[in-house]
Each structure stands twice: as C-alpha cells, then as structure tokens.
C-alpha cells in the first residue's frame, strides 16, 4: 500500500482506545496513519451538571443511589458520588441494573435511584429492567436517564471539517445492538468509510488495514470485521425494548455541547420511573472548567498531551476532566500507557 497519503482514523469507542494503548498498536503503524480517539466513553461525555444532580439526589435522606463503578469517581462541579458516599450518602456500585431491583425489594421504605449512563450497548438492559420493574409493580425504583445515542454524535464528527477524520473504527458491541444500517448513512453522506471491529489486537489491526484500503479505493461503505457477533440487522429485540421505554431527545455532551436527538427521555407509559420527574431537582449549570481540554479531546481535535493540566494537575488519582476518570477515557489511556 502506498504510504504517501496521510490518513486520520478515529476509534469511536473507549474500549478501542484502551485496547490500542494497551497493545502499543500506535507505535507499530507507519507515520502516514494517525489514530485519534472519539467520544465513545459514556462516563466521559456525561456533563458535570448531570453528575451534580445525581449527587444532590444521592444526598437525599431516603435515597439509595446505585450506578456502575466508573461513574462514582467522576467529578461534577462539587465533588463526586464517591465523596458523597464517604460523607454518608448511600451509594452502591452494581454490575447490572437488575441488581437495583433486588435492592429495591429489600428496602421498601427507601427510594432506589439508578444513575444511568451508557450508549446503545447498555441502555437496552436498563430499559429491560424498567419494564421488569413495571411488570412486578415495584414502585420505589427510579432511573436518572443520562443515556446517549452514538449516531448523532458520529454525524457531528463526520461533518466537522475541523476534525477532518478520514474513516471510523467502529465499536463491535454497540453494533451488536444497532446493526450496520445506521453507519451506512454516515459512510455515504460524509464519505467516511466505517469498519466495525472487535477488541483484540488483531481485530483492530485488521480494521485499520481495511479502512486504509477503503480510503485508497474511495470506497465509502461499511464493513464488519467482527462477524462472529455483529449481524447486519443488529438486535431488533433489544432496540424494541429500548424504544418502548425511551424516546430520543436533544442532549448535552460534556465538552461538546448539545447534539440533537442524542439523548433518551422516558415515554409517558414509563414516566413513573423517571427520577427527574420524581425528585425534580433544580441546580444551576456550573461554569465550564478552565484549562480542561476534555471537550476537544472527545472530538479528536486535541490530544491529551496538548492539555496543560495533563499529568500535572490532572491525574487518575485527582482527575479534573472526565477523560481522566474512566478507565476507558482517552486521557487515562494516554496517562497509563503512553509516556
């Protein structure tokens, strides 16, 4: 393959970012191929305001807050859920949202609130939990919906001249749910080939090779290199569950801003489970953080190394921006694996 054309590929997903850093793939690539990281870490793109709100709910007297492990150390503008826990709030890490229902049944006098974050990989399981809660008539279970939809964000990036991505390395696990159809629009409309691939070293290398070939051949389509799990039509059952409980809504992405129809809100039939409606917490939006480049990093415009806080004021131990907190955040990956 000729190497005189420079190409910029974006790995959309945080799991890919981590796998690339962990295996040292970047060091093996020719200079003509640049890999940049995208917005695919759900913890990282959750705005501070939503975290502040979750903390405010967690601090309420009769609340038990549950969430996934990554979320508890993410700083809002006034601390983290982990700090709230240290000071007495009942915050519990769960591995599956279904565990929250067990907690709800054991604590009938408490309100159990699940702080929900995640993309299409995660959100259908939460929707299924909500359906199950309704079926069982559980009245003390609520969800803070901070879910995000990948494709509106992908379109924002694909259409940005500033970012200038030539192709996308797309996440295998999201695609298991969504199928390949949604990528087709991005590939055709914006002339950005997409390769859906797995998370092993060889999967990623093969994905990069196929993308480079597609760019060379001007072939703007979608290819699945992860055929062992991704089907063209995805998982319609999971999507139906998701669509039964939630509907798309405009949503704020930390560091990026509002993206049309990129979040999920409760449908009327399930609004009894909506924590926003139940608690109606109003807190002011915090001022943007000074010096933190997470917004640019999430869009692939800047690298963590461009940030003055990186490795100095901002470390995994004392993270300032979200990309340093999540194990799959770009800054954490750079901090850990690239020196």
């Amino acid at each position, binding site marked *: 393959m000729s190497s005189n054309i420079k190409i910029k590929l974006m790995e959309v997903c945080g799991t890919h970012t981590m796998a690339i850093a962990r295996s*040292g793939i970047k060091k*093996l690539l020719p200079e003509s191929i640049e890999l940049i990281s995208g917005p695919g870490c759900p913890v990282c793109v959750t705005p501070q305001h939503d975290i502040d709100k979750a903390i405010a709910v967690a601090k309420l007297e009769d609340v038990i807050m549950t969430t*996934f492990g990554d979320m508890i*150390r993410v700083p809002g503008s006034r601390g983290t859920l982990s700090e709230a826990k240290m000071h007495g709030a009942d915050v519990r890490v769960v591995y599956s949202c279904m565990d929250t229902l067990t907690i709800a049944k054991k604590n009938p006098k408490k309100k159990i609130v699940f702080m929900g974050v995640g993309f299409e990989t995660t959100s259908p399981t939460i929707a299924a939990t909500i359906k199950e809660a309704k079926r069982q008539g559980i009245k003390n279970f609520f969800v803070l919906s901070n879910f995000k939809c990948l494709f509106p964000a992908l379109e924002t990036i694909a259409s940005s001249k500033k970012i200038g991505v030539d192709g996308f390395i797309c996440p295998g696990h999201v695609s298991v749910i969504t199928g390949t159809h949604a990528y087709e629009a991005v590939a055709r409309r914006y002339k950005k080939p997409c390769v859906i691939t797995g998370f092993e070293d060889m999967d990623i290398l093969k994905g990069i090779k196929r993308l480079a070939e597609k760019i060379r051949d001007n072939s703007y389509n979608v290819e699945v290199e992860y055929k062992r799990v991704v089907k063209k039509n995805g998982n319609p059952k999971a999507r139906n569950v998701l669509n039964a409980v939630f509907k798309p809504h405009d949503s704020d992405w930390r560091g990026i801003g509002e993206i049309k129809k990129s979040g999920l809100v409760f449908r009327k039939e399930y609004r009894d489970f909506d924590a926003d409606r139940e608690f109606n917490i109003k807190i002011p939006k915090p001022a943007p953080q000074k010096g933190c480049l997470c917004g640019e990093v999430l869009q692939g415009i800047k690298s963590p190394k461009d940030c003055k806080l990186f490795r100095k*004021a901002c470390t995994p131990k004392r993270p*300032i921006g979200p990309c340093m907190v999540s*194990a799959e955040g770009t800054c954490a990956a750079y901090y850990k*694996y690239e020196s």
Partner: protein
Amino acid sequence: MKAEIREITLAHGNGGKLMHELIEKLRIRLSNNILDELTDAAELRIKGRRLAFSTDSYVVKPLFFPGGDIGKLAVCGTVNDISMKGAKPLFLSLSFIIEEGLEFKVIEQIADSIKKEAKKAGVLIVTGDIKVVEKGACDKVYINTSGIGVIDYPKRISAKARVGDAIIINGSIAEHGMAILNARENLGFKSAIKSDCKSLNFEVERALSTSNNISVLRDPTRGGLATALNEIAEASNLGIEVYEKEIPVKRSVLKLCSILGFDPLYVANEGKFICFVNGKDAKRIKRAIGPKSKIIGKVTTTNKREVVLKTRIGSGRILPILETDQLPRIC
C-alpha cells in the same frame, strides 16, 4: 482545581500510589534503619543469628471464598512474607478482633483452617489474643498474624535487583483477586476460578537451595504483578522488561477480567512469587520451583525505574504503578 485529599480512602489500602504515600507518612515518623527498608519482613540480627520478622492483618470479605478462607490466608500470608526474606518460617502469633454476634461455628471453622494450613506450612502458632468489639465496629472478624523465621541463605535478599537478573514467576496470576471479586459481588458468573492462596515456603526453599545468586523474592499481592515489578525497578534504580506472552494467566481469569474491565497484571495474588536471579541460573531455578513456573522478563540498564511490557504483537509500553482502584467498566 481539586483540593489535596484530607481523608483516608479505600484507595489508600490497595497497594498502589496512594498507599505508598500513606506508608511514607508513617515511615518518616517511625524511621529506623530496619524499618526504612520497607520490605514485607524485617531482617534482624540477634547474637549472630539472622531472623526474619513480619506482621500482617487480614480483613478479607467474604470470610470464605473459593480456594480458601480468612484463616488459611492469615497463615499463608505471613508465612509468605517471611519466606520472601529468604527465611524458613517457624512460629506465628495469632490475634482475632471479633464482632459481637459472630457464630461460634464460624470461628471454629476458621481455627480449623488455620490449624490445617499451619501444619502444611510446618509452622507453629505459639501465642495469641482475642478482642471482641460491639456490632458494627468491625466486619465479622479480622485476624492479625505475626511470624518469625530463620535465615540460612548466605546472601541478603533485599528489594534491589541486579543487572543481568532474570525474573521467574511460579505460576499464573490474578486468581485470588478475581475469585474474591466474583464471590464478594455475587456476580453470578459460574466460574471455576479459585484463589491461589497457599504457603510458598517450600517452593522458595527449593529455589534458595538451587542458587546463591537470588537477589529479590517478592509475592505480588495487592496491586498485582505490575505493582511489585514497579517497586523493584524503583528500589533498584534499574529498568525491568517483561514479556506479555510469557506471563501465565488462565483463560477463565482472563475472560472474567475482560468482562469486568480489569487488567490481570494489577489483580492480587496470594500464592505467587517472583524470583530475581542471575540469568545464568534462571533455568535451574525455574526447574527447581516447578513445572508451572516461567521466565517472564529481565532487568535492564535502560528505562531506569520503569517497567516495560513487550506486548504480544511486538510493540512495547510502560507498565505503570496502580494509581487508584481498578473499577469495573460499564460498556
């Protein structure tokens, strides 16, 4: 900007950077030339005899887990700390802190397990203590054991590796941490993963009697293999290179780690040790330790105070010290 951490957090006990900072705060206050070495066991000289002395507390949850229990752990943990000084462990003390309400049968079961493991390791429990605290003041039962052993090895086993040393490990990593996590969190994974918790004194004895060129012995417990290697690189002011494809990890452990987003290199072990020995003796030591042992790396003069992992696909990266708790990922 975030303020300095003022309170002790769980991450201060995980074997990573914060724990080192806490240890340093205490060491400065209590400093003497034996303590300052900060090895798992102290080497003492009493009337010409060299003794190893160590103490450790056990707070594992759940008390009983696949592959062991708090009693077994309390024996082999301290036996191993003494062994890592190149000593033969002989005597242990045993203290219980018990929460009121604990059933007698639980404490009896733990005592039986202690007896069994002590017999296996060839050590005697020679003194002990019991305290009972009110409900909520501790979680069921905590155990402390201290131990004494004698050192006959002609050279001093320290924290410092030497140039030309090869690194040998006695078997596959990350089993204790993942077994505990699976049991503790009720993850519902039907898994055969068992804690590797065992006394290492006889394996260490075989290594010691094979070569007089062993420089460092270390059991990579909290913080896992990566943290232990980093501590040794730092203390030796030398570099360490390890080969990903040589580091043994069972497939079941690897899979559970990958589902939960853990890096096995940072997951705790309770029945593993690494031995730094002059490269020329490496194969003999490997044979002496046993068939599951592997040569996983070497000490270098480049990349001082750092650990470099040569990845499976032929690239390389720095293997840093654990900064905070590893958290399960969400997607």
